[in-house]
């Protein structure tokens, strides 16, 4: 009978005994190195080679999966960064442009203050439609107080004069146009001449006597005699002086102070220059 009871309830009794054993393990707080923990340590050691192998394998696999997933994310991030870079480059270019414009306008402002004359800044909006004339279009006209024959200058030097004025635009004839005639003098020798352009490009100073002292590198400035430009504005420098033929005058080639191809902001002198008292030196 007892054996029948044990047979019927052997599993429960065994499990109950094991429960008590487990509780004893918990409550006794098995110390590392104790006999009860040795099977656990042996099991860890038993599985260690398999886990190490799997870890090496899984590192490569997970690395592959990681790399693949990261690639997808990286490409998206790359595209986004490229777009952002392009935007930033564009922004940087705009900022540089604004800085340059600011600098130019600042220079014009200084020039205007130095001249102590009324002047209005204007933007160049176009150039001459043909290759024969040398003119520019600016974005302001009579509404800004512009009139024909008003002087136009840049921070670097003299540019030209207004030859046509519309309400909100005007045409500027450059000093290197073949129709231009600007009264100028050599700052060093005081030699006087008329600055104008040549049809096939270039700037010359005409009607300079053969006896005048002009040398390459001399600074040429406005004389103030034409009633358009104030005195002393920089026109350019002497590039070459030659005497050809039996004529009375020198062939003087100039390099203009202002680069006409790169003009963006100009100053239009809306005030007539003061009348000059001609010096004894200039008369001579």
């Amino acid at each position, binding site marked *: 009978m007892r054996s029948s009871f044990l*047979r*019927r309830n*052997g*599993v*429960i009794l*065994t*499990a*109950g005994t*094991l*429960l008590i*054993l*487990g*509780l*004893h*393990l*918990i409550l006794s*707080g*098995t110390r590392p190195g104790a006999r*009860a*923990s040795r*099977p*656990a*340590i042996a*099991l*860890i050691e*038993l*599985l260690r080679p*398999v*886990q190490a192998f*799997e*870890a090496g394998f*899984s*590192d490569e*696999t*997970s690395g592959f*999966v*990681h790399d693949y*997933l990261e690639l997808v994310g990286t490409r998206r991030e790359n595209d986004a960064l490229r777009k952002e870079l392009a935007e930033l480059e564009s922004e940087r270019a705009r900022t540089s442009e604004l800085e340059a414009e600011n600098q130019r306008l600042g220079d014009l402002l200084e020039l205007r203050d130095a001249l102590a004359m009324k002047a209005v800044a204007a933007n160049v909006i176009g150039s001459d439609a043909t290759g024969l004339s040398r003119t520019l279009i600016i974005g302001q006209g009579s509404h800004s107080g512009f009139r024909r024959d008003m002087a136009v200058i840049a921070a670097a030097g003299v540019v030209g004069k207004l030859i046509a004025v519309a309400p909100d635009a005007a045409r500027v004839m450059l000093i290197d146009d073949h129709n231009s005639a600007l009264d100028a003098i050599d700052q060093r020798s005081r030699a006087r001449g008329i600055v104008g352009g040549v049809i096939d490009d270039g700037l010359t100073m005409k009607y300079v006597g053969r006896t005048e002292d002009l040398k390459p590198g001399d600074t040429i400035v406005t004389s103030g005699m034409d009633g358009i430009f104030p005195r002393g504005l920089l026109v350019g420098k002497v590039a070459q002086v030659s005497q050809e033929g039996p004529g009375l005058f020198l062939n003087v080639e100039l390099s203009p102070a202002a680069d006409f191809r790169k003009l963006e902001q100009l100053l239009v002198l809306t005030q007539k220059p003061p009348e000059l008292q001609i010096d004894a030196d200039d008369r001579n």
Partner: protein
Amino acid sequence: MGLFTIATLIALILQTTIPRLLPFEILVPELTLILVVDLGLRYHGIPAALAAFAIGYATDAFSGNQLGLNAVLFTAVFILTYGLSRAVFSPGRVLGVMAVFGGVLFCALGTYLAGAGWTGSENAALVTPAILIQAALTALCAPAIFAMMDGAAWMTGLRRSSSREYS
């Protein structure tokens, strides 16, 4: 019980290495508990009780819990599923899945109480969703594990003792 020894070792390897294979964190199903439930439902003998205790102890060896905790919990799960299988005429797979689900909750509760103390802590609400998800995940894996063990037992000729033998 050699089959369950091998199965336990494989389950422990998988449980300790699966998280490393994946690039994201995932709750790992308790494969060893599934083996214990299978023991309780289908293998009614003293060796099965010893095996349940051993599986729990082996799980303790690879977990951060107090040594002996999983041994106690798994043995308790074995007793409960053993009693369930004796009460039900023909325990099917559905009962096995439910037993696994309940077993995971039971073990999680026991582990939580052992860690937090009988007074519990305010973190109970935080861990409950994770426990439920793990229980569901383990229950989902149970039918496959049961089928594999059935197949392996059939191949090795392991005899499953029925509770009716002792009635």
